[in-house]
């Protein structure tokens, strides 16, 4: 299924195609008779955080494995740096890093030894102490470098995995649910790390089942039942899901049904409002930035005393539920 890419004018759109670091066309993976990834297509530009959002079992990990060349697609093609990743030469493999969903390093080695092992897998010079130290400092594990991996917390194991993925300075990172099962404070820290990496020019492909984390991404792909429902910016995602921006109008007195009908007849307002209370109504508009002043003016004309008028940003959980509901309805 071709994802709908809706790019709204206020947001800078994805970088132009020549800068795309990953390109997937009609990518499909079928295990026995089960279609796990269903004809998905998308492109990922350089130096962005691409969030791949979806519930557990939606096909995110399979997609990441297809992109990294771990799996061969049943159908479709994938290119990374303009080449099929399954055909990469040894030196080309050093250009990207992959952090699996689970901790796959060695529990009987210390933090430092595990990182050292990961570094040597990439053929990094024996004089690599500084690089290891930097990687551990980046994930704030340097002080724990002598501890055995089996003795550190789950969150620390995740950070160690991240350090092992970063240690060879890849320009593209695949992170498979790095924030799953960890506390919100640590999750926030992870996102700070990712943003820092992005600032340094690294492209990050990250999967997450926390829909709310989509806000941290530059581009978000929403996957459900193997299908890619949409790829857009976080703001564009909301806009696309509800057909426009949402504005909440709170009046001092009650809003009559006639006034609500008048509201729906305004040219910049979509013919759909949501009653959120006796004195309040949620309005869907083309652009919240231009609609708010126009609505203030309209309220004055209608002698409606406005208590507040502000843009409403629905949670990504709501956005996701709406998208999936619509997908089910379409089917």
């Amino acid at each position, binding site marked *: 299924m071709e994802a709908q890419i809706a790019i709204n004018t206020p947001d800078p759109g994805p970088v132009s195609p020549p800068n795309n670091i990953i390109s997937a066309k009609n990518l499909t993976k079928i295990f026995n008779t089960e279609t796990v990834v269903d004809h998905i297509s998308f492109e990922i530009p350089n130096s962005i955080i691409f969030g791949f959002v979806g519930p557990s079992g939606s096909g995110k990990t399979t997609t990441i494995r297809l992109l*990294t*060349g*771990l799996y*061969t697609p049943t159908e479709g093609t994938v290119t990374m740096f303009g080449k099929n*990743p*399954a*055909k*990469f*030469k*040894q*030196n080309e*493999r*050093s250009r*990207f*890093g*992959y952090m*699996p969903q*689970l901790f*796959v*390093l*060695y529990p*009987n*080695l*210390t933090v430092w*030894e595990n990182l*050292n*092992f*990961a570094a*040597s*897998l*990439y*053929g*990094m*010079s*024996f004089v690599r102490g500084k690089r290891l130290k930097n990687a551990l400092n980046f994930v704030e594990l340097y002080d724990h470098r002598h501890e*055995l991996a089996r003795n550190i917390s789950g969150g620390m194991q995740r950070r160690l995995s991240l350090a*092992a993925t970063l240690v060879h300075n890849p320009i593209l990172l695949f992170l498979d649910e790095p924030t799953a099962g960890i506390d919100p404070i640590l999750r926030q820290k992870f996102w700070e790390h990712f943003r820092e990496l992005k600032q340094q020019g690294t492209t990050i492909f990250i999967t997450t089942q926390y829909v709310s984390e989509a806000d941290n991404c530059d581009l978000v792909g929403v996957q459900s039942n193997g299908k890619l429902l949409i790829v857009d910016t976080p703001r564009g995602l909301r806009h696309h899901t509800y057909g426009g921006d949402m504005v909440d109008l709170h009046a001092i007195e009650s809003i009559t049904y006639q006034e609500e009908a008048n509201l729906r007849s305004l040219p910049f307002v979509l013919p759909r409002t949501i009653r959120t209370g006796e004195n309040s109504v949620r309005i869907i508009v083309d652009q919240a930035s231009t609609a708010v002043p126009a609505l203030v003016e309209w309220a004055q004309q209608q002698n409606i005393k406005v208590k507040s008028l502000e843009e409403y940003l629905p949670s990504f959980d709501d956005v996701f539920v709406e998208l999936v509901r619509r997908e089910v309805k379409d089917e």
Partner: protein
Amino acid sequence: MSRIFRSFIRASSFLTKEFYEVLRQPRLIVSLVLGPFLILFLFGIGYRDQNRVLRTIFVIPKNAVISAQDIQKYSETIKSLIQIEGVTDNKNSALDQLRQGTIDMVIEEPEAAFSIIKNNHQAVFNVYHNEIDPVQIDYIDYLGWLYVGAVNQQVLQAFTSQGQKDAAKLHQDLRDAHANIAAAKKAIQTGDNATGQQKQQELTGNLDSISLLAGGTLGLLDSYQATDGGDTGSGDHVQTTLSDINQNTNVINNPATSPEDRLTRLDKIDKDLSDLDTKLGVVQNISPAVLVSPFSSLTRSVANYQPSLLSFFVPAVLALLLQHVAITFAALSIVRERNVGTVELFKISPISATEVLFGKYLSYMLFGGIIAAALALLMHFILHLPMWGNWWYFTLTVAVILFTSLGYGFVISIISQTDSQAVQYSMIFLLASVFFSGFIMGLEKLIGPVRIVSWMLPTTYGTILLRNIALRGLIPDWILLGGLAAIGVFLLFIAWLLMRRLIGSSAWSK
């Protein structure tokens, strides 16, 4: 940085990783080195080079030919192997005790043995036991055989002793015969035909008696002479001599025989009787025990060293242990990495199948080498395993055993889906090695096709090679060592193919 150097760095990742992982398991190292050493040490100090002593009851029927006293006397020859718990005529009671385990063996004397023998049959001693172990059953068979041999020997000794007593009468007959010959010759020479005839008749009587006694007593000597193929130094065989005497006697008793011929024949008979007398002297000087068992054996080895049972087993234990450690460690290494997901890191990273295998072979060879060195030194200096050969050849053989065993281990590891499967396959190799490698029983006891299994096992080669080097001081049999190395190379190739497949299709381009 050169491509080869990068490749070396990638392979070396396993060297340090395995080193640290093993180092973090001190109990494992202790169990791998000290465990087998302590087992051998305990075996060395606890093993008694003595046969099992079987508690035995003799069942003697009431009408037995051999008395209870004799039965006990006969068992003297195997007294170190049996302990007589009693003599009874109640067979059922003895068998009950056997079933209850209070005794180990019941030997039943045959009833009416003489009548059986007279009917040209062997009288059978029944030997009862309650064993299920085939080795113990063989041992009891052997003891029964020994016991009956001892009984037969005692019976023969009694016969022989009686024969020697009879020899005194034979000696007297011989003296009488010589006297009668002298008297007969004198009578013939003087023409006294009547006396001559009388002495000849007396001589004939003497000779009949001699013929009867000498046939039994001196015949035994004749048999040894025939067996030996040599000579007693006293003339012809007894039967030939007796036949000559008989023939000459017939001639002299013939009235038509001339006096000259008679004299000649009497001289010949006289000489033959002297020969018999000489032989009789020989027989009388030999004890009955030697006469019935004239031969014994003495085993001598041309090998330069006769190892103790412990020393003999130490090289085999070392080979078996190294094979088991190498197969088990290698078998678990990759299957664990695959189950945990670490293999995905290998697939993604630039490391190739060759580098992974090289790194793992190198690390486990070093690890196995350290264990082998520690064990060999402990066994040499504490258990006194001799080293008649060259330590370098010993080291080379150990290296090839490890190399080939690791090949098996890595192949197992790649084809196994779980740790349990890998361990199970390793245990099958261990079990096969115990039965087919010559560790317990020699390869010659296996039929040809089954020996194929033996020659697939590193322990088979290791046992032969290490024993020959350490205990015989030989250089390695290069064909055996080469064969083992060839299996190792073949397994390396298989492991490499499987590893390439495991690391993924992308790995073909690595």
